[in-house]
């Protein structure tokens, strides 16, 4: 399962990719930040299209493991997260560091581009906003289809 409501356990992901032939493991943790657009954020609430998260994450991991000699583990947390909590963790293990770093970066970028997860920011001034929905009127959101490149479509 790529989606969880529990606190992320980086150790569990590391154990999933560790192997005697690997000489390097790159990790990325995305954590909840206390500010956005100059405003103070109190917490985030993540929601997701669960079945598609599982399907799309599996595709992203498979693509990375086919493109580089890596083993990848990935987990995203949903629900209510506090400042500093880890929302997403990616680990990529390889024989050498170059492929581990490249694959790790690729997987987090593809996740942000393709995986159906949303977050609401709860601001200190009491307002609550869906991230990405506010700044885009119809025209802005219309760009969202263009951001998914052709190879994502089947």
């Amino acid at each position: 399962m790529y989606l969880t409501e529990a606190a992320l356990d980086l150790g569990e992901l590391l154990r999933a990719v560790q192997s005697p032939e690997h000489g390097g493991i790159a990790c990325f943790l995305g954590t909840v930040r206390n500010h956005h657009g100059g405003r103070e954020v109190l917490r985030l609430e993540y929601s997701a299209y669960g079945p598609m998260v599982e399907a799309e994450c599996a595709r992203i991991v498979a693509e990375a493991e086919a493109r580089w000699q890596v083993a990848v583990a990935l987990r995203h947390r949903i629900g209510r997260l506090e400042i500093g909590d880890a929302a997403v963790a990616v680990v990529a293990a390889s024989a050498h560091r170059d492929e581990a770093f490249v694959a790790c970066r690729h997987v987090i970028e593809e996740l942000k581009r393709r995986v159906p997860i949303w977050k609401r920011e709860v601001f200190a001034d009491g307002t609550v906003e869906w991230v990405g929905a506010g700044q885009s009127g119809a025209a802005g959101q219309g760009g969202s289809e263009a951001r998914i490149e052709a190879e994502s479509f089947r």
Partner: protein
Amino acid sequence: MPSTAAPVLTVRVLLFASYADALGLDSVELSLSTPATVADVLERLRDLPGGDRLPPKPLCALNLTHVRSDAPLSRGDELAILPPLAGG
């Protein structure tokens, strides 16, 4: 009266996050005359209360895979309309 009804297919449409808020629902079953595409569903959604708040070309996923708005629909499909993604 002879029946002039075209063949009909039913799809389940899922709405999330800001789009669910805009239309006040997170899923709806729509019956469409065939052949039908994703764009036909979007047109129908725009006629619902709050549907005018959907952008011209939202992200869509058909049976858990990203698709373009010209993708054809089949009976029993699950079509999700996805607001701007914000994972990570």
